[in-house]
């Protein structure tokens, strides 16, 4: 990963031209809503990935980076919208690099230097767009349903592929398993057909050889000593006219007719009827419960949807789904139907012998229909064909089971067999009329038919064996997959759970120092329960406050990122996160980030300047590594609380004779300045519960505090006999006092409300000197070298020194012997 040194944003989102110098350190962007903070987050994401999440995903239809990435006034100039980010890459020995993108060529960033190691490092960032965490995403980890949370967490940990492969392996295993009964029936029927030709009841090498060798001997063929997988029982037989296709093998046709007659009788038998009745009762029981029936229907629908899904849209409702999302969505629903699945499996077991009978009858019909086609003239077996079609329909319906009512209809009528006796008689008559073959012809027909059916049997057997092997392999692979991935995921979640609880305890050590959490993975789900003051584990939203939930979201995110990236977690953007965490806990959040993630550069955005002050006072943000925005306009973009900008803008107002505008901005700036001064100088200010301080509440206190501090510093310098320091302080005091007088201090400190409100009524000539006086006055609070406002050190406890940012001013406040 990387750390960001500098960002230059031009004509991008709401920003016209903005440069932020982050120096590779933590950085905060603060300002009221609508001042451009999100534009910075978008710019960072765009520069590093070419994408803007805010313009993609759910609820952003019609928005795109191309169309809405540029500033609204440059929407037709995507080449003008650019973001350039200077980075350092810790993994490359802090190598410096620059990545620059324009909206026009979002997919082809310019990388400098164009080195492969730099490109690879930046590509890893591109692979981890989760470096940006917004409050919206924060809550997704905490309050989502288990199935949704599983997706969010798995997506963040890049675990989507685990679920994707599991779904495919499961599908293959299911398909292999479902194919087995059909393969088994085909083999069984092939065996029965072969046995019918051989006129034996057992299929073995011995029985086959005992059946075929006498016929071969009759034809002068050498007997077969063994039956290998490719042995032909008609080996050596020459084709003659009598053996040519077209002749009905009289003996076998007779036997096949007998097989058909028995199969049809079996369908009408009491045993078959009883089996159908019992299965129908079970189906009725299953269907009686509306939920079961609904579940059964949905289960079938869900499984079909999984099979028919084309990787893009749901085959049922045409809604677009990402593959992993779709499969996880259906997997979750299917898991709810486990009980229904068990009952369905029991019914399917009951239906198996019924399906066997139907399949046997169907095969017997097909065999006889084939024979009939060889008679000359042909025998009309339309009735047999029609019943075969009906039987096939019954078989298919019972096999697929749903709709359950249709299967019940089939079971109720399963013993209904049309009267085919006349057709069977016709066939019997025709078979009887076939001239008796000579012994040689009969032997020849026997060998040809036996060889043909032996071939069918061998093919069916091989297919069945292959099917079984596939099913076993698929099941074994799936089982191994489940074992390995479950163990791995459980370990990951255990690690994350431990880290999460540690982080959360860190930010709530005052009252939840025994906090624990449980991440509970199951297929397609991730349960998440947290301890509530020793009363048990509950979902985060059950009893914890919104602020605590925000804290949990951040901790879970940090734990996940730490697991995912480890030492490579060098960079993260926290976009308006933790707004509902209270002041005390924010300080702990600062401590958590500072102490436990010392190598991670955090970029914060917040609309709460108190939060910014917390980050500064807690040392999370150092020096001036922040941007404090005061306003935003469509023409100018965000404007910072920067002295030069403010005074230039006020001069611009005056140049346009807009005294009212200049007065408003001066007052607004002085409010900001006073807050900053009171904060830095640790001024005593009357407490206001709503934290809404007016200018009059602050500026007089800041002024008197600076005066007191200078006096104190002078007294301390005298006690240490530091004459040069005393002289320097005296000069500062003189300048400060003169500037104060010029502002009319004696007036505005008495009635500030009246005083400042009068500014708007002044003429340009009268207000100009006021502006100049306050500019000089405010600058007297700051170092003339570094420009940074003086501040008291330390920030809490006994006041020890008055300092500036560069160290030029460092006044001791402690007298000798104090």
């Amino acid at each position, binding site marked *: 990963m990387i750390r960001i040194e500098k960002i230059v944003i031009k004509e991008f989102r709401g920003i016209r031209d903005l440069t932020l110098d982050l120096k590779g350190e933590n950085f905060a962007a603060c300002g009221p809503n609508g001042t451009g903070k999100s534009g910075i987050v978008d710019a960072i994401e765009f520069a590093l990935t070419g994408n803007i999440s805010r313009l993609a995903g759910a609820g952003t239809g019609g928005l795109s980076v191309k169309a809405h990435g540029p500033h609204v006034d440059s929407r037709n100039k995507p080449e003008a919208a650019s973001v350039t980010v200077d980075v350092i890459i*810790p993994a490359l020995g802090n190598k410096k690099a620059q990545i620059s993108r324009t909206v026009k060529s979002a997919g082809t960033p310019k990388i400098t230097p164009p080195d492969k190691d730099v490109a690879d490092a930046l590509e890893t960032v591109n692979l981890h767009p989760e470096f940006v965490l917004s409050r919206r995403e924060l809550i997704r980890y905490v309050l989502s349903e288990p199935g949704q949370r599983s997706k969010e967490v798995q997506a963040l940990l890049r675990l989507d592929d685990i679920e994707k492969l599991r779904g495919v392996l499961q599908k293959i295993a299911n398909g292999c398993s479902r194919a087995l009964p059909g393969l088994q029936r085909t083999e069984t029927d092939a065996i029965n057909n072969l046995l019918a030709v051989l006129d034996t009841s057992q299929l073995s090498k011995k029985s086959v050889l005992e059946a075929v060798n006498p016929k071969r001997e009759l034809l002068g063929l050498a007997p077969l000593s063994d039956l290998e997988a490719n042995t032909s029982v008609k080996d050596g037989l020459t084709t003659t006219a009598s053996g040519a296709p077209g002749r009905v093998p009289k003996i076998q046709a007779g036997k096949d007719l007998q097989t058909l007659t028995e199969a049809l009788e079996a369908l009408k038998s009491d045993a078959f009827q009883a089996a159908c009745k019992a299965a129908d009762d079970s189906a009725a029981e299953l269907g009686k419960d509306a939920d079961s029936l609904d579940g059964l229907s949905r289960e079938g629908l869900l499984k079909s949807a999984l099979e028919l899904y084309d990787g893009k849209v749901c085959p049922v409702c045409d809604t677009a789904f990402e593959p992993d999302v779709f499969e996880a969505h259906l997997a979750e629903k299917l898991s709810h139907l486990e009980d229904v699945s068990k009952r369905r499996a029991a019914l399917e077991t009951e239906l198996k012998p019924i399906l066997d009978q139907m399949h046997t009858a169907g095969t017997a019909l097909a065999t006889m229909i084939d024979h009939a086609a060889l008679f000359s003239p042909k025998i009309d077996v339309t009735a047999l064909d029609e019943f075969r079609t009906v039987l096939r329909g019954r078989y298919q319906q019972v096999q697929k089971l749903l709709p359950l009512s249709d299967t019940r209809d089939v079971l109720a009528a399963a013993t209904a067999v049309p009267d085919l006796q006349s057709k069977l008689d016709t066939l019997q008559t025709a078979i009887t009329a076939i001239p008796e073959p000579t012994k040689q012809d009969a032997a020849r027909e026997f060998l040809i038919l036996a060889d043909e059916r032996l071939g069918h049997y061998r093919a069916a057997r091989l297919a069945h064996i292959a099917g079984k092997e596939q099913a076993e*392999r698929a099941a074994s692979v799936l089982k191994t997959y489940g074992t*390995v991935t479950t163990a791995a995921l459980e370990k990951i979640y255990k690690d994350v759970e431990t880290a999460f609880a540690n982080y959360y305890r860190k930010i709530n050590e005052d009252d939840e120092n025994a906090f624990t959490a449980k991440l509970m993975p199951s297929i397609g789900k991730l349960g998440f329960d947290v301890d509530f003051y020793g009363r048990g584990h509950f979902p985060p939203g059950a009893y914890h406050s919104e602020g605590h939930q925000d804290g949990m979201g951040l901790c879970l995110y940090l734990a996940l990122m730490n697991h995912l990236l480890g030492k490579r977690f060098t960079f993260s953007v926290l976009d308006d996160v933790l707004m509902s965490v209270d002041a005390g806990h924010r300080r702990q959040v600062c401590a958590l980030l500072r102490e436990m993630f010392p190598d991670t550069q955090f970029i914060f955005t917040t609309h709460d300047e108190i939060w910014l002050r917390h980050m500064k006072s807690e040392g999370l943000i150092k020096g001036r590594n922040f941007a404090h925005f005061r306003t935003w306009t469509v023409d100018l973009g965000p404007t910072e609380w920067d002295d030069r900008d403010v005074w230039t803008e006020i001069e611009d107002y005056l140049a346009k004779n807009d005294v009212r505008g200049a007065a408003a901005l001066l007052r607004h700036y002085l409010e900001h300045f006073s807050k900053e001064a009171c904060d830095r100088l640790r001024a005593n200010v009357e407490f206001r519960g709503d934290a809404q301080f007016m200018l009059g509440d602050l500026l007089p206190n800041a002024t008197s505090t600076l005066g007191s501090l200078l006096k104190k510093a002078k007294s301390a310098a005298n006690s240490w006999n530091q004459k040069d320091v005393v002289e320097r302080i005296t000069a500062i005091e003189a300048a400060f006092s003169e500037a104060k007088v010029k502002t009319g201090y004696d007036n505005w400190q008495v009635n500030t409300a009246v005083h400042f409100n009068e500014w708007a009524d002044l003429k340009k000539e009268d207000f100009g000197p006021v502006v100049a006086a306050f500019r000089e006055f405010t600058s007297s609070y700051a170092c003339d070298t570094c420009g940074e406002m003086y501040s008291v050190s330390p920030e809490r406890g006994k006041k020890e020194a008055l300092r500036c940012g560069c160290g030029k001013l460092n006044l001791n406040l402690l007298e000798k012997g104090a």
Partner: protein
Amino acid sequence: MDEPEYNSTAEEPPAKVKSVAAKILEEFFDTLEKDEGTTEPAKRLRKVVLDDGVFAEPAIRGALFPDAS
């Protein structure tokens, strides 16, 4: 201002980030390869999934059952 130092990670090689999923899948393929009956399918699956990045059912099925029509 001095350049910031981040020595804690400076010694790491600039290796391509391996995803957590890839590590788990590698473990699965290793386990599968150790099983006599699935050694060859495991090798083919590893190539399809990890090298080629393909998760489509026909490709996975083909890797599992190369002789099936």
